[in-house]
């Protein structure tokens, strides 16, 4: 069961006789990394005032105002805007489809640790529990550590230009994140109801369905909605590598120095993101 309460603070505050070296080490390493990074990133504020940097800003601002609001342009941009929403919805749906099974497999309390497995033999726990658990964790780690636009780039190669590679990229990258978070939510549920069900003789499936799922569901739904908010931003960006949506139009207008179109597109993106944030926040508030 849970740790003895008095054990927790001892982890954080080492015995008073031994002074922690952590603050000094941290400061030294941090300072060294910052100094190195300042050089490696070629940070040089003077570049703002060299050449025609400021003139370029003026050109950009003058070009962007007033924004392009002709009926024809707005009509043309309606489809990419809707496509951005559609990519985010489908991408999140695929992420959930990937995240639920992988997340379940990556939950230690479901696979090999804790109350569900007290009757298993050690070898059984290892083969049927720990091995799939470790594999699922590894897959999730690869899925989420490769950024979504790299996935998009590769999927564009695999299935061609358009919204479909964007959907797959968001599905895979966000599937990795959702799976990890789902497993953390499932591991952190209160074990008491599970133990009660177990003691009452409930089957393993019964314990999961009636003990685990009701506790975890609101958090799972809320986190998924939060990811959907992130997905709409991501789906706008993926267009830059040819995966449809608003991003592709922003890139085109930028490359052709049509800054007034860029401004309009950014405003459209703002409205879309705000609408999704609003819808998702309303639903999450009702769930909480």
């Amino acid at each position, binding site marked *: 069961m849970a740790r003895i309460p008095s054990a927790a603070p001892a982890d954080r505050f080492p015995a008073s006789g031994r002074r922690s070296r952590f603050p000094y080490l941290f400061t030294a390493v941090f300072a060294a990394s910052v100094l190195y990074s300042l050089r490696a*990133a070629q940070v*040089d504020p003077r570049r703002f005032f060299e050449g025609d940097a400021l003139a370029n800003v003026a050109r*950009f601002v003058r070009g962007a105002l007033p924004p392009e609001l002709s009926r024809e342009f707005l009509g043309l941009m309606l489809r990419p805007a809707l496509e951005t929403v559609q990519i985010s919805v489908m991408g999140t749906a695929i992420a959930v489809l990937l995240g639920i099974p992988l997340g379940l497999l990556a939950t230690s309390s479901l696979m090999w640790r804790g109350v569900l497995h007290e009757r298993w033999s050690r070898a059984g726990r290892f083969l049927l529990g720990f091995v799939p658990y470790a594999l699922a964790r590894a897959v999730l780690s690869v899925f989420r*550590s*490769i950024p979504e636009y790299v996935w998009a780039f590769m999927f564009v190669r695999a299935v061609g230009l358009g919204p479909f590679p964007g*959907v797959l990229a968001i599905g895979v990258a966000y599937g990795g994140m959702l799976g990890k978070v789902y497993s953390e939510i499932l591991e952190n549920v209160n074990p008491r109801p599970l133990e009660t069900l177990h003691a009452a003789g409930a089957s393993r499936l019964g314990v999961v369905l009636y003990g685990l799922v009701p506790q975890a569901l609101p958090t799972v739904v809320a986190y998924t909605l939060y990811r959907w908010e992130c997905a709409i931003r991501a789906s706008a960006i993926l267009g830059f590598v040819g995966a449809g949506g608003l991003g592709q139009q922003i890139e085109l207008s930028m490359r052709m120095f049509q800054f007034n179109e860029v401004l309009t597109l950014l405003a459209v993106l703002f409205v879309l*993101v705000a609408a999704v944030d609003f819808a998702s926040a309303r639903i999450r508030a009702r769930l909480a």
Partner: protein
Amino acid sequence: MARLPTARPSRAWALWVGAGFAALLLWSWRGTGVDLAGLFGPEGLRQIAIYVGKLFPPDLSAATLRAAGAGAAETFAISLIGSLLAVAIALPMSLLATRTLLYRGILFEGRPLAPAAKTLRVGLYACGKALLNVLRTIPEIVWALIFVFMVGLGPFPGVLALGVHTGGVLGKLFGEVLEDVDPAPLEALQATGASRFRILLYGVLPQALPQFVSYALYRWEVNIRAAAMLGFVGAGGLGQRIYVAISLFHEQELMTLILAIYAIVTLVDALSAYLRSRLV
């Protein structure tokens, strides 16, 4: 426990939301041309197998490894300095986005502002919020394009892009943290006659700081991934090399670079988790 009658409308509401999502999903399915059957059909799987086959073995020649190492180091540098710049932008901006510091709540109990001063401060708050919204809404990659246009190619515009966008995100989050602090210590300070500045310094900030650190570390994890992307528009780092490798069909080199991204992202995630456990 018996279901209370008040739960009924919430069930109807859940049905409506569920139906709405089903419709949204169907519409998106048709609009995005998702073809999972084609992808996982024999032809699709064959194509994937061919592509994956080309990625292996990764190119481990000295030149590629050196390029991947340099790219990873540059990406790390962009993410670190970009995140620090973001914190530097967010800290002052968040003060403008916090109503409880500007015009309402406990700091102003018993010491009401003059109407003109209050109007000014409400206006200040609105401006602060609006500016943060603009910084936050424009994606990093668009900021990167703008800064490349201003200061030229290289990692520096990448740093600026991350700093400005993340500054908007953190400014909003910091402002929310400042508004949500526990008011009890502030009341205690106020009862001792502490000035507003003292209350901010000794009552609000100590409560908010751990959350600031936690949010900044979380955004650093986001930024290491973003830093690797900004190279696509000429803002340095691994992204630039990945762009070249994909465009030239150098698949084995691409695999090495992807491994480098995986390594640097995993490293930053681990560092951030470690620092969070030590600092927060």
